[in-house]
C-alpha cells in the first residue's frame, strides 16, 4: 500500500515538474536567426511528452488505488517491487550518508585518510565476522590504489586542504 501511495506521489510530482519545465523552456531567450528551430523546440517536445506519459501513468495508479484501496491482490512483480527487508531504510540512509560524507571528506582531508576511514566504516554496515580482514583491507587497498594512480598513471588524487594538504604532499 505504502509503495503504491509513494508511486502516486512521485508520478504526480513528475507530472507537475514536467509541466513547469515546459514553461521554463518556453521562457528561454528567443533567437531571431533560429526562430523556427529555437532552443525551446526540442525541450518542449520532450517535456510535453513526458508530462503526458506521467499523467497517464498517474491516472492508472490512482484508478488502481480507487479500485483496491487496501492494496488488493497483487501480481508477483508488484509483490517483489513492494518487498522491503527489515532495516532496509536504515541501511539505505546510512550507506547514502556515508557515500556523501566520503565525497565531502575527500575535498577536506584528502584521498588517503578519507578512503581509509570510508572503507573501515563501510565494512561495518553489513554484518561480517572477519574483523582482521576489515582492519587490514582498508589501508592495503587505499595504498595500492593511491600508488597505482599517482605513480603508475601519474594522475593526481584529491589532496585535501590546509594541514591535510601538507600531509598529502608529504605522503605523495
Amino acid at each position: 500500500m505504502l509503495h503504491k501511495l509513494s508511486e502516486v506521489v512521485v508520478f504526480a510530482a513528475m507530472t507537475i515538474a514536467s509541466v513547469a519545465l515546459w514553461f521554463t523552456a518556453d521562457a528561454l531567450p528567443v533567437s531571431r536567426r533560429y526562430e523556427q528551430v529555437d532552443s525551446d523546440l526540442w525541450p518542449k517536445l520532450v517535456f510535453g511528452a513526458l508530462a503526458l506519459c506521467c499523467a497517464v501513468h498517474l491516472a492508472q495508479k490512482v484508478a488502481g488505488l480507487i479500485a483496491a484501496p487496501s492494496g488488493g491482490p497483487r501480481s508477483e512483480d508488484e509483490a517483489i517491487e513492494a518487498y522491503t527487508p527489515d532495516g532496509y531504510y536504515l541501511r539505505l540512509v546510512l550507506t547514502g550518508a556515508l557515500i556523501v560524507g566520503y565525497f565531502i571528506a575527500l575535498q577536506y582531508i584528502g584521498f588517503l585518510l578519507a578512503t581509509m576511514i570510508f572503507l573501515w566504516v563501510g565494512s561495518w554496515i553489513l554484518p561480517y565476522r572477519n574483523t582482521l580482514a576489515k582492519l587490514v583491507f582498508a589501508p592495503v587497498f587505499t595504498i595500492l590504489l593511491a600508488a597505482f594512480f599517482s605513480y603508475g598513471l601519474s594522475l593526481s588524487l584529491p589532496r585535501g586542504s590546509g594541514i591535510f594538504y601538507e600531509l598529502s604532499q608529504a605522503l605523495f
Partner: protein
Amino acid sequence: MLDAFVSAAGYMVGNPMSFLLIIFSVVWGIVFGAVPGLTGIVGVALLIPFTFAFDPTEGMLLLGGVYVGSTFGGSISAILFNTPGSPEAACTSLDGYPMAKRGEAGKALGIALAASAVGGIFGTLVLMFAAPPLARLALEFGPAEYFALAVLGITAIASIGGGSLIKGLIAGLLGLAVALIGLDPLTGVARFTFGNMMLLTGVSFIAAIIGIFALAEVLQRFADGPPKGEQMAQVSTQLPSLAEFLATKVTLLRSSVIGTVIGALPGVGATTAAFISYSEAFRWSKRPELFGKGSPEGIAAPEAGNNSAVGGSMIPLLALGIPGSATTAVMIGGLTIHGIVPGPMLMQNNSDLVYSVFIGMLLANVLMLVFGLRAARLFAVVLKAPYQLVGPAIVVLCMTGVFALNNNVSDVAVMLVFGGVGFFLKSYGLPVASFIIGLVLGPIAEVSLRQGLILADYDMMALVTRPIAGTLLLLSALSLVYGIWGKLRRPPSDGPGNAQPEAS
C-alpha cells in the same frame, strides 16, 4: 592492394617487436577498459608520448591494440560488478550482471569475449576491404540521416518497457530530458542549468553511467542487507559452446554490421553502436522476455556492436582523415607527431603503415581472446571476496576513476546524483536501458533535427524523404509497430531491462 598486404605482413613477420607491442597494448587496453572511469581514451592518450620511441607503424600498432583491448575490457567490470568500465560497456551490464548474479559470470564473460572478437574481426575485415566505399557512404550522411539514425534507436525506448509501455516511455523521455542540460549547441543559450556554472557543459556521460549502474547497485545491495547465498562463486571464464555460439549468429552478424556502419560515421561511436545493436537485438529476438534478465543475446549484441565500431571508426580516420570517435581523435595526435597526415593520400603514400595497422588489429582481436580470458579470471577472483568489503571498494574506485578523468570534483558530484537517479529508476521499475538510450541519442537527435530543418528550409517533408533518411525512418516506424505489436501479444509481466529491486 595485395602487394601492400604482403609487404605489411612481411614487415610484421620480420619485426617481432610489433607482436610484443600488440600483446602489451591489448593487456593495457583491457586494464584501462575494466577500471571504471579510466576508459580507452585515457589509455591511448597516456601511451602517445611513448610512441616517440618507436617507428610510426609500431606506434600505431600500440595505439590500435589499446583501442581494441579497452573496448572489451569495459565489459568485465560491467558483467562482474554492474559497473561499466567504459561508456560503450554500459549496455552489457543490462544482461551481463543479471547473468552473473545467477551464477553464470563465467558464461557471460565468455559470450562477451567471443562476441567482442567476432565484432572486432568483422569490423577490421570491412576496414581492410571496404574502407574507401564506406567512407564515401559516411560522407552521404547529413543531419537528416543522423536524425533518422537516432530515431531508429529512440523508437526502441517504447519496446524496452519491462512489460509497461508507459514506463519505457517515461524512462526514455527522462533520459532525453537530462541530455538537454547545458548550452544549446546551436544558439549557445544555457538550458536547465538554473544558474549553475558546472552544468553549462552538460552532464558528463561517463560520470552519469557509473553513478546509475555502480553506485545504485551498491546502495541497493547494502540496503537489501546481508547477502543470502548469492551464486557468484562460479567465476571461471568459458567461451560459449559451438551450439550456443551459433544460436546468436544472426544477432552477431546484425550487430557487427550496425557497429561497423555506425563506427564509420563521424561523431557517433561505439556507445551509440552498442545501444542501437542492443535495441535491434531485442526488437528482433525470438525471446525478448529474457532481455534484462540475463539473455545471452543481450550480451552478444552490444559487445559485437561496440567492437565492430572500433574497425568502423578507423575507416573515416584512415580514408578521410576525420576521426570517427573520441579515441580515434586522440589517435590522430599519435599520427601527426610522426609527421603522418591521415586522409585520402595515406593509403597511397603509407600503404605499409595502413596495412600493418589492419593486420595488427586483426591480431589484437585474436590476442584479446587469450588475454581477455586471463584478465577476466583475474578480475573475477574479486567476486570471491565478501561484498561487505567489495561494495565500499567499488565506490572508492568509481570516485577515484571519475575524479581522475578530468581532475574535477564536479564530475564526482554528478556521479553521486546519478547514483540517486539509478536507485530511483530501480525502485519504481523504470527501465534503465530506456533512460540510457535517451541520454545517448537525445543530443544527436536534437542537433541533427534542427540542422536538418535549417538545411531543408524548414520543410519537414524534404527532410524525411531523402533516400537514406527516409529508409531509416521507415525502418524505425516498421520496427516500432512490430515492437508494440509484440508487446501487446506478450503477457504484461514479461519484459526486458526492468530493473526490479531484487529481493536478495
